[in-house]
């Protein structure tokens, strides 16, 4: 039982489902559930495809980092799939292909292979977003995504030209050995940074996000904001920790981009009146924070942050998108008093928001404390200040949103949440509360990941 099955099974199921159209949704469910079970027995090893050793063949790396990433992405994928399987039947094959692409992204140890899986998951993402009925927005996404991956490929090729290898670990070793000055290495890394940055929603490169998530539905919202966001941030993390050598000028540009992305994200969320816009701008800010942590080198808490963020975004977007479908518009005024007569969903929405804000009794608090303590211990005072300031602004607009959603007397929006969604949402928010109170496992997971040193396979 090796990791390749994680990619092979979904691809195989995708082709079969083309032939047998009407079974594709059930096959989707069966495969994604199967993969989640399969993950239990995955050995930690490097699989070289076709026997060629590292620099020549493609290798799949299964270490602690990619194992956690796989777990999060597959579980999220499965949850989103269950909710949306009944009313998006014809997307079965596409979802299977995107599942394969995502698993490939997590596993691959080879840079060009990463480009290929990036494109596969990207194209399936474009197709998924066509369900938004906004073709122009999807077109933007397509153009942005393709340009991003082209730049990534360009950077990749320059690196290959300079160091002759495409394997991540090998590349890291060769860069260290060759003693290349940081300036020379800066251009390819910046190109790759921009390439992945488009997908990871960093500010200057994410103009497509507003179009896509602004008009998302119950499938594209959680999928893009939850699953794909988590996946792209994991990839970003792997690249930043494994391969990149960041010189001080390059670091300056990245930190300016990140700081701007965090603060501007919060400001935009503060200034928007549509609920979905508030959520998407706040997820832009959170993406900025995640990349910031990776750049400062604390993979442990970054992974926890991304997974928590992924789960919360799935919950938030599911609830809001469902409500928008029923009410017809996602303006805050129209959704006012949404939770008055569905209290359970409201309670879980509130719990998830509070965990995002990092308030005590919720898992978000522990992760935020971990991030801040590590940032402070590395003697950096500027970024914690930015993070704290942004969480104040974030707190204000989320509280404003919550009070509006909970308090309204007359003509409340008639929204009914069906059972599976309610169960999913309540389970996740309970998880957040449980991990908030008893966060020993989170602590160990963070410690295990912290000593995931560059180039060493655990």
């Amino acid at each position, binding site marked *: 039982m090796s990791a390749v099955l994680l990619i092979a099974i979904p691809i195989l199921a995708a082709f079969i489902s083309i032939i047998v159209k009407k079974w594709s949704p059930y096959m989707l469910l069966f495969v994604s559930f199967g993969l989640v079970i399969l993950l239990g027995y995955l050995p930690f090893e490097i699989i070289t495809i076709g026997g060629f050793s590292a620099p020549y063949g493609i290798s799949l790396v299964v270490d602690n980092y990619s194992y956690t990433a796989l777990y999060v992405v597959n579980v999220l994928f499965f949850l989103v799939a269950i909710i949306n399987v009944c009313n998006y039947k014809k997307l079965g094959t596409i979802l299977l292909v995107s599942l394969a692409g995502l698993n490939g992204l997590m596993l691959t140890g080879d840079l060009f292979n990463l480009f*290929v899986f990036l*494109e596969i998951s990207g*194209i399936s993402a474009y197709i998924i977003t066509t369900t938004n009925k906004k073709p*122009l927005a*999807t077109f933007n996404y*397509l153009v942005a995504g*393709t340009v991003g991956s082209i730049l990534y490929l360009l950077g990749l*090729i320059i690196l290959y030209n300079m160091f002759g290898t*495409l394997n991540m670990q090998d590349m890291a070793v060769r860069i260290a050995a060759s003693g290349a000055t940081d300036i020379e290495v800066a251009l390819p890394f910046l190109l790759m940074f921009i390439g992945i940055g488009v997908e990871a929603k960093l500010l200057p490169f994410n103009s497509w996000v507003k179009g896509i998530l602004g008009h998302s539905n119950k499938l594209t919202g959680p999928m893009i904001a939850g699953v794909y966001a988590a996946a792209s941030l994991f990839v970003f993390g792997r690249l930043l920790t494994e391969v990149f050598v960041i010189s001080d000028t390059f670091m300056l540009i990245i930190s300016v981009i990140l700081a701007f992305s965090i603060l501007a994200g919060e400001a935009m969320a503060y200034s928007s009146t549509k609920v979905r816009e508030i959520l998407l701008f706040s997820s832009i800010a959170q993406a900025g924070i995640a990349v910031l942590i990776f750049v400062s080198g604390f993979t442990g808490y970054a992974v926890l942050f991304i997974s928590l963020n992924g789960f919360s975004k799935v919950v938030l977007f599911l609830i809001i998108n469902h409500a928008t479908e029923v009410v017809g518009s996602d303006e805050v005024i129209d959704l006012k008093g949404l939770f008055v007569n569905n209290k359970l969903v409201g309670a879980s929405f509130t719990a998830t928001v509070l965990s995002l804000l990092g308030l005590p009794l919720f898992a978000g608090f522990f992760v935020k404390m971990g991030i801040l303590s590590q940032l402070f211990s590395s003697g950096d005072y500027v970024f914690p200040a930015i993070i704290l300031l942004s969480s104040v602004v974030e707190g204000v607009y989320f509280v404003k949103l919550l009070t509006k959603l909970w308090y309204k007397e007359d003509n409340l929006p008639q929204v009914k949440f069906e059972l599976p969604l309610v169960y999913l949402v309540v389970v996740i928010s309970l998880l957040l509360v449980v991990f908030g109170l008893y966060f020993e496992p989170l602590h160990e997971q963070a410690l295990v990941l912290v000593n995931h040193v560059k180039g060493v396979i655990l």
Partner: protein
Amino acid sequence: MLLYAAIILMMLGLYGILTQRNIIKIIISLNILEIGLNIFIISIGFVNGGVAPIFTGQNNLGSIGFVDPLPQALVLTAIVIGVGTTALGLALAKKIYAKYGTFEIDDMKGAE
């Protein structure tokens, strides 16, 4: 020399995407960008006086200056992916045309 051609093509592609308002023209400039990139990848593998990297009867020794085979393999996948994206782009263009009746982004009403 091939390198410079590739870079010029890529600049042309980028320029095309930046300035064109027509959906189809954007897709075409996207293709130009990809072709530029593929040529760039090919030019990386060039070895002066190299021979096509296929083992035949007379040149099966490692010492003969083979041209680097790896970029050519990469280009193959890159081209296929380029085709994939262009196909999806055209499908979207058809849908946009069906919805807005024009390819010009500027005069698409209600695009927001």
